[in-house]
C-alpha cells in the first residue's frame, strides 16, 4: 500500500476545497438555509406535524441528504474529470498506485467534505428548529455511508463523462429528481397508494428514510432495509470502480 500517495492526493484535494471555501461550504449552507426559510418557516407553518414531528424539523434529515448527495457527486466527479480533461491524469496513470489508493485519496477527500458539510447544515438547522437525534451512531453511519457511496458514484461519473455536458446532466436529470421524489420534503405515506409503490423503486427513498429514522425513529421503510440499500449501493459503486481500473475503461488507451 502506497500511503504517501494516499496522503498526497487527500492533502491536495482538501487544499483545493480550502481554496474554494465559499463555493464548497458557504454555498450549500446558504441554499439549505433558504430551503428552511421557504419550506420550513413560510410553508411549513401551515403544515401540520408529520408523525409527531414539526414540518421544519421533519425536513432536516432530507435536506442534509440532498446536500451531501449533490456535493459528493459534484466534488468527486470534478476531482477526476478535470485531470482527465486537462491531461494531468497521465501522472496518476503512471504512478505506482492501485485503485485502492486513488479511491482513498479522491473519494476520501470528497466524502470528508460532504460529512463536514452535513454537520455544518445540521448545526445551521438547529438555529431554526429543535432537533433531536435519537440514534447518533446510526445517524453518523448513514452520513458516512452516503457520503462515501455518492462520492464513489461521482468518481464513476467523472471517469465516464467525456464532456462537461455529461458531467452536469446526470446530477440534474437523474439524481435531482430522484432526491426530490425520494421523500426529502414529505413522507412517502402522504402519497396515494399507487405512487407509494412507485416510490419504492427509487433507491433514494430508502436512504433518506433510514437517515430520518436515526433522528425521529419514524421511517417509510424498515431501517434494516435502508441500511441494506446503502450498503448495496456502496458495493455496486466499488465493483464498478474496481472494473474501471482493471480494464482501464475511459482512462487508458
Amino acid at each position, binding site marked *: 500500500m*502506497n500511503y*504517501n*500517495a494516499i*496522503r*498526497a*492526493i487527500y*492533502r*491536495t484535494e482538501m*487544499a*483545493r476545497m480550502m*481554496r474554494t471555501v465559499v463555493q464548497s461550504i458557504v454555498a450549500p449552507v446558504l441554499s439549505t438555509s433558504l430551503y428552511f426559510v421557504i419550506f420550513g418557516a413560510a410553508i411549513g407553518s401551515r403544515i401540520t406535524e408529520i408523525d409527531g414531528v414539526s414540518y421544519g424539523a421533519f425536513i432536516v434529515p432530507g435536506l442534509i441528504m440532498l446536500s451531501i448527495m449533490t456535493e459528493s457527486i459534484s466534488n468527486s466527479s470534478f476531482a477526476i474529470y478535470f*485531470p482527465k480533461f*486537462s*491531461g*494531468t491524469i*497521465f*501522472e*496518476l*496513470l*503512471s*504512478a*505506482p*498506485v*492501485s485503485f485502492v489508493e486513488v479511491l482513498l485519496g479522491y473519494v476520501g477527500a470528497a466524502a470528508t467534505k460532504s460529512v463536514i458539510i452535513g454537520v455544518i447544515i445540521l448545526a445551521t438547522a438547529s438555529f431554526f428548529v429543535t432537533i433531536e437525534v435519537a440514534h447518533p451512531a446510526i445517524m453518523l453511519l448513514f452520513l458516512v455511508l452516503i457520503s462515501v457511496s455518492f462520492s464513489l458514484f461521482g468518481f464513476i461519473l467523472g471517469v465516464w463523462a467525456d464532456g462537461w455536458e455529461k458531467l452536469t446532466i446526470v446530477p440534474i436529470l437523474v439524481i435531482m429528481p430522484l432526491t426530490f421524489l425520494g421523500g426529502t420534503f414529505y413522507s412517502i405515506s402522504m402519497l396515494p397508494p399507487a405512487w407509494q409503490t412507485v416510490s419504492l423503486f427509487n433507491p433514494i427513498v430508502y436512504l433518506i428514510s433510514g437517515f430520518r429514522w436515526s433522528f425521529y425513529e419514524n421511517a417509510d421503510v424498515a431501517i434494516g432495509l435502508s441500511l441494506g440499500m446503502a450498503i448495496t449501493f456502496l458495493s455496486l459503486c466499488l465493483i464498478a470502480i474496481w472494473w474501471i481500473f482493471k480494464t*482501464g475503461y475511459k482512462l*487508458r*488507451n
Partner: protein
Amino acid sequence: MQPVIRITDLTKTYAGGYEALKAVNLEIDRGEIFGLLGPNGAGKTTLINIVCGIVTKTSGTVLVDGFDNVSDYRETRSRIGLVPQELPTETFETPLNVCRFSRGLFGKPDNPEHIEKVLKSLSLWDKKDQKMMLLSGGMKRRVLIAKALAHEPDVLFLDEPTAGVDVELRQDMWNVVQSLRESGVTVILTTHYIEEAEQLADRIGVINHGEVIIVEEKTKLMRELGKKELVLHLTDPLAGIPTSLGDFELELSDGGCELTYHYDTKRDHTGITSLLAALHDAGIKFNDLNTSQSSLEEIFVGLVHKDS
C-alpha cells in the same frame, strides 16, 4: 549487466485498429542516454506510454529492472519519471505544490530539501508559489521536468523535450540531463531532430511506422550516416570491373550497365575526382549519373525536412 529496460516483441493496436507498434524489441542499458529518433507518428510516444503504464500493450513484455511492468507495476513505475510531450498542468496549483504531490504519489515521503534542489536546478525557485496558469509554456515544461525528478527516478523519459523550447531552457535541460547521467540515472529521450540525439545520446534507436529499424552507438551511426553512393549509367555494358579500378569500392549491376560507387561524405577525399579520371583512362563512357544516400539517411533527411 542486466539492461534497465528490456522490451520484447511489444505490439500495440489501438482501439480503432491502427497498429502503432509492430513487435518492438529494445534494450536500454543502465546509466546511458538513449535517443529514440523517428518522425511524427512513428510510435515513440506510444512506446514510452506503454512502459510508463499510461497505455496498455496489446502483446509482448516490458521489464524494468527485471520487473514486469504489468504484474509488478508498483516496482516498475516507482523507478520511472516521465516528462510528457504535451504540457498538461494543474492550472490553479503552484510549482512547489505539484512537485510535493508528485513525490508523494510515487510513494516517497516529503523531502523539502530535494524539491528545493530540483526547483533551483531548473531556475524555478523564484516561481515556486506562482499559479501555473501564469507561467509561460517554457516554464510549464520546466515544472513538468521538476515533477518527474521530484520522486528521484532511476529512469527518466523525456518525450520530445525540446519541441518549441527556447535556447535558455534547452541549455538548462542539457545541464540537468548531464548531471542526472553523472548520478547514474538512465535517460531516454525521443526526438525528431537528429542534432538533439547527436548532441546528447550515447546510443540511438530509429523507429519508423512502429518498427525499430536500427539501434546503434551514436558514433558508429554517425559514420554510417555519412555514406553515399554514386551510380553511373554506362553507355556500353561491362563484363567485369577492370583491374585498373580495383582500388575503388565498386559494384556492377543491371547486366553490367550500372556502376555503383560507395563513398563517405565526411572523409576529406571522397575519391570521386580520381574515380572519374580512372574511368576516363580505362575508356569507360557513361551517359548519366546520380547520387543517392543510404536508406537510413533517407529516413533522417525525410525527418529533418518534415520539420524544418
